């Protein structure tokens, strides 16, 4: 039951509306933008998959330091490469205005989990902070500062003291910040 690249069926549209947090206009706009990313041959396939490089050219994702992680997390292929239209809708739904805090924190956790092992350990936290502070050397933290920062973060958020931050602990930290919901948003 795939969507042909040119036109979304009405049943499909209503089904997408039920299963995601997006409105009808948002889904149609997403469809338009997605088909622009596909190459000519791919457009005729039943379940076209846009390659990761094409998706990373979207202006909303182009400068985001987490862009590769985002595509990996939402991709349903075995090699975690490329998004189908439904994956793309999942992405937009999780980043939309009306998504719940729970969905957003769940996906944020998976995006920050760089090694995909289910928890945020020290390596994950280090990569996260490096992504946050940028590419250039003078904005990054020194190794000492990084070590200090990571141990402070773990001390504050690791409640069961197992040395890693799991999903529940992450969600606990997130729930205390009222700005998270408004900053975890991408709008086409």
């Amino acid at each position, binding site marked *: 039951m795939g969507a042909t690249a040119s036109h979304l069926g009405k049943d499909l549209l209503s089904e997408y509306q039920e299963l995601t947090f997006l409105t009808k206009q948002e889904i149609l706009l997403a469809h338009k933008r997605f088909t622009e990313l596909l190459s000519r041959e791919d457009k005729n396939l039943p379940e076209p998959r846009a390659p990761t490089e094409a998706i990373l050219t979207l202006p909303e994702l182009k400068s985001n330091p987490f862009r590769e992680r985002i595509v990996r997390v939402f991709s349903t292929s075995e090699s975690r490469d490329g998004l189908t239209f*439904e994956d793309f809708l999942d992405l937009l739904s999780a980043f939309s205005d009306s998504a719940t805090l729970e969905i957003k924190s769940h996906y944020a956790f998976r995006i920050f989990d760089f090694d995909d092992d289910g928890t945020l350990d020290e390596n994950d936290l280090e990569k996260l*902070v490096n992504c946050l502070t940028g590419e250039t050397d003078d904005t990054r933290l020194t190794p000492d500062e990084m070590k200090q920062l990571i141990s402070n973060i773990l001390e504050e958020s690791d409640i069961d003291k197992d040395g890693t931050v799991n999903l529940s602990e992450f969600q606990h930290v997130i729930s205390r910040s009222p700005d998270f919901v408004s900053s975890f948003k991408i709008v086409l």
Partner: protein
Amino acid sequence: MPSRTIGRNRGAILSQYYNRTLQLRMRRQSRPSLRDLPHSSRPSLRGYRVESDFSETDSRAESVRRQALVSNLQKLSVSDRVRMLRTMPLSMADKRQSSVSLVLPEDPLPSSGQIRVTSAQVLCHRRRPGSYCTACVLVTAHSLQLWQVALKRVGGRFGTGVLSYFLFLKTLLFFNLFLFLVTGLFLVLPQAVHPPPAVHPPPAVHPPPAVHPPQAVHAPQTPQLPQGPASFSGLELLTGGGYFSDSVMYYGYYSDTTLNRDCDNNGSLPSPGGWRGLDCARQGLSYSMPLAYFFTIGTAFFITCIILVFSMSRSFGQSFRVEQSTSLLAMKAFCSWDFKVVKTSSVALMSENIGTQLRELLADVTRNHANQTAGQRLWRLLVHGLAWTVCSGSTVACALAVHYLAQHMHAVRVLQARGEGGAGGVAADPLLSEARLLALPVGVSLINLLLPGLFNAAGWMEEYDSPSVRNSVAIARNLMLKVSLLSVLCFHWLGREATSGLQCWESFVGQELYRFLLMDFLFTLLDTLLGEFLWRLFSEKVLKKSRRPVFDIARNVLELIYGQTLAWLGVLFTPLLPGVQIIKLLLLFYIKMSSVMLNCQAPRKPYRASKMTTVFITLLCFPSFLGASVCVTYTMWSIAPSRACGPFRGLSTMMQAGRLWVEQLRDANPHLTWLATAHSYLVENPLFLFVAAGVFLIIIYFNSQVVGGQRKVIALLQEQIKNEGEDKKFLIRQLQNTHAKKRDAPARRSQQDSAC
């Protein structure tokens, strides 16, 4: 380890949501009895099924779980089912697999139109249904497509902080639109369709101290003849007088009679109170202007109050956190990245800011706050005291200056009116006398522009513990200035102008408010031009720095709130003032947007957008709206309306209109005596207000106690989690020791055997 994979893989998510749907069903039906819950020595596990580690390859177990979930989903109501499906963090393919099996013959899904639950309704069902629903829909309707592209550009470049200013502007626009529609429909339109006669009542009816036409502004040539509408000179747009003074814009134009259509004893003759038209009213369409005026203004204020309180409580609920936050570093690491920001240079700036903030926070957390010596603390106190003295002193000085200026202007006006009326000769240049009216608004706007700069300068020399304290102090000082200015002006208008005996003081006050609003707008434009545009040119060309000015969000929002207060004060006297405010806000939006894009850079300090939005909505509700409604209520309750103009001429107070109507109803229909008694007890008796306030206070106290209790419970639960973590580690260590012993035991036995 179980805790690592909770919620991670598909099987775990399916079984987690199976539990949730089960709980939802049980909650919907009845409370589960304690007997049904499995016993456990650990209170945390009671009532939950322990989710053991699942491997993804066990597809048969997974399909079993999926079936269980689907069967549970079928038993829920439609909206619950949709909500559950949406909130499951699974991929679309998985969700469609689950939802396809939901289509069963005995559960006839109606046409897809019914299932299509709009996001507004989903939002409603998440919170308490019913009462919040209509307001939810209203609020979601507010987030229409207006200015969507422009707001996205601003958010993409400057982040959530600056965006919140523009969203606040949009909110104010909707408030004013509502007010404008209400007053336009019920007041302006009927009066414009039935204009009152141009002849104003002859002075002999109510001899005022000096004979002059109702508009005291206009310098008359011959005071006895009626004045037709003056010719339109450009100054009207600034002063609101002249051509506009005898138009639908002001209170004085409105008739105090019942507007009737096909009627002989047409109520165009001004009769005191205008209540004689009842027989006529039964024949044709009748529209009682005084009643309409009274009830429209009252209802508009009441509805605005409700909407404000609702949005304030919603915003407060979103940003208030029961637990005191101690995990600043973790929060900053996890929550500070703004995914909305799109432009590459802004992203680089944001990374730099976050790096700086992390370093500062780290330094704060690890630094030992050495106790300051007594001398240092005393010095800090002295500096704070000095700054506060400077600020409050300048505020008081400016308030006094405004007071004396207003007094002087008033005296000049009285003298002018009296002098001209008596001498009947020398008339001052009308344009000059009108332009002189602009002196007070210009003075007040100048003070509003310059004094916050002085406060900032005073704030620089002070030393604060954290930037948020500095921010709050700056806002408090600015607020204090505006509140004192507005209270001096209100005292002047309602205390002095109203009782001065000049004709049609309400129209004059309306004109004053129009002038103030306009001057405020012009000075904001001036500030944008000087503060942002010229400063950027200056710093680029002369100072050769690439640092652009920063958009001061708090100061701009306070300006908006000040303007809105003026608009609310003026609705009673100038029913078209919300329209003026709408035009002003529209222009302000586009000007500020282009100025921000061209001239400013993103703020460097951390800006807690949702907390500040709550503060601003609270400021809009409390000093601003409350003050305006208190002034309006005071005007309606105790000040005598002017005798020669307006819909309430001849009555002792404006409230009397309502009272007379109720009495009239009672006379006409004896069954409605309860209405009259209810009116006299509820509206006129202050005891009701005291009782209502008392109930309110009790509710607030109760809620604060509940919050205190919840904080204690949170602390206890955190202790408990920590202890259970320790238990888990202990048990795992024991397990490992036992396994190790078991492994060593046969090895030792074989060693002993071989030793033999």
